[in-house]
């Protein structure tokens, strides 16, 4: 097979993207402190909510009733994942908003 054939083969492209993403995924969080384990899990939970894009594409291109029903279910489930994921994560991280340095003054006013 000629090289250009291989490179233009979408399957090989997908595989390339897959492998590279796996390395990026491991590399990018390798230094997370233990207090952020839970928010990180929750944040990545929201990110895999990107399945909403897949769900929308499937529903939008559905040709039979079965596909429409299944696609609608997928969009609904994926929306729960995306919206819930981001809101919950934000709520967890809200707690971290005050940094140690600006916490001191904040501590003084409630007597």
């Amino acid at each position, binding site marked *: 097979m000629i090289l250009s054939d291989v490179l233009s083969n979408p399957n090989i492209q997908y595989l390339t993207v897959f492998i590279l993403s*796996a390395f*990026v*995924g491991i590399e990018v969080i390798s230094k997370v402190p233990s207090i952020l384990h839970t928010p990180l899990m929750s944040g990545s939970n929201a990110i895999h909510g990107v399945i909403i894009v897949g769900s929308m594409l499937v529903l939008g291109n*559905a040709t039979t009733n079965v596909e429409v029903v299944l696609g609608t279910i997928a969009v609904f489930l*994926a929306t*729960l994942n995306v919206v819930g994921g*981001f809101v919950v994560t934000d709520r967890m991280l809200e707690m971290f908003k*005050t940094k140690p340095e600006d916490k001191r003054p904040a501590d003084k006013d409630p007597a």
Partner: protein
Amino acid sequence: MTRGTFLDLCYLVAAITFILALKGLSSPKHARRGNMIAAVGMAIAIAATFAQPHLHHLLPMIIAMVLGAAVAVPTSRFVKMTAIPQLVAIFNGVGGGAAAVVSITTYISLTATTTVCRSFLGVSLNCYSSGGVKSVATYKILEVVLGVIIGTVSFSGSAIAFAKLQELMTGRPITYPAQQVLNAILGAAAVACAILLMTTGALVWLWILLVLAFILGIAFVLPIGGADVPVLISLLNSFTGIAVAASGFTIGNNLLIVAGTLVGASGILLTRMMSAAMGRSLPNILFSAFGSVVTASGSTEHDDGRSVRSGTAEDIGVLLAYARKVVIIPGYGLAVAQAQHVVRELAEELKDRGVDVCFAIHPVAGRMPGHMNVLLAEANVPYDELKEMDEANPEMSTTDVALVVGANDTVNPAAHTTPGSPIYGMPIINADQATNVVFLKRSMRPGFAGIDNDLLYNPKTVLLFGDAKDTLTKLVASVKSA
């Protein structure tokens, strides 16, 4: 630039934001911004999808999205902080379910029409060489199979994890005879089903596979004890990521592949870090039915001659007020009672009296790693008073009072002393080295891991029973008057 190229670029931007978001979420300073960045990226991706050509069924799509948001926002906004782990489980599960449904629907669509390639999505769909496919390529079916199995396991597994955390069912590991054999049979049946699907292409095998995967997910989670559920959720989160990536392969969408794989890969690493924080290996957590050995012994059967000493709030208040150094060890009971503000009040009261106070946070205190930090930060406890376990332990021997608020397993000396104990080897906070130990507990019930704690029977231990918020409020009053 064509519309298709532009939309693909939008997806690329979204993919980049997800990478940046994970990076941000790994540092306390940028965590919140990281989450925001991902949300913006997601909005771009959704907008780009709406702009795709030939997108039909917009009405059900928008209704489903509005409904989804209408359910998700209030639930995640107003649910109590203590219930957050359950929520993460459920939102993860529905994502896995969505991935499975996407894979199934795509398979139905692929087999239903012969001109799939040209009509489907308007994106290149792996039939670049020939005009139209009559039967679906084997590797394509394999992608569908992976998406369905992994997504469904994540869905049903998360549902059980939710039920365990919500205490709809026992948090104890559930075991039954020949469990491993049955699981192996289930797994083998799923593999057989997948092979039949690949050779015959008949849709019915996919439905059977769906059912098998559903049962497999339940069977996988049942034997895992409540205390290990956070690690389990992290693993299932990673599964959902992989299922999303598989769906991405199936429908030929790079964004799904990138985002799914990012979450899948980082999730595996995160799961390993979490289990390391508990001093256990992942296989040990998944397959050892942690805590099951003690399921037989109920909570009331420990009156075997040993007695516990329970004190009054006044006594303990005096003990605390005249101590030089107090270490507060919070646990899930603190979270349940929403006592984070009162405990800060107590700490401040003691500090005003010149007592050296700090909080010792076990890495898995509460129901999720970081749970206590979040709660105490909410109550404005200064960051430098929160000490991690490794930092706090060397100081325990010079501590006058270890005040254990609603924690149990994380201070159980059995982890050091009893080789047969299910928690043996787990790092604990050495509350037993302090001169006095005070437990604020709801009851004598054992902790989440379901094991008895010898420290409760230690002569230097005093117990104060009750809801953590009530007992702490009484302690604040008695310290004030001491």
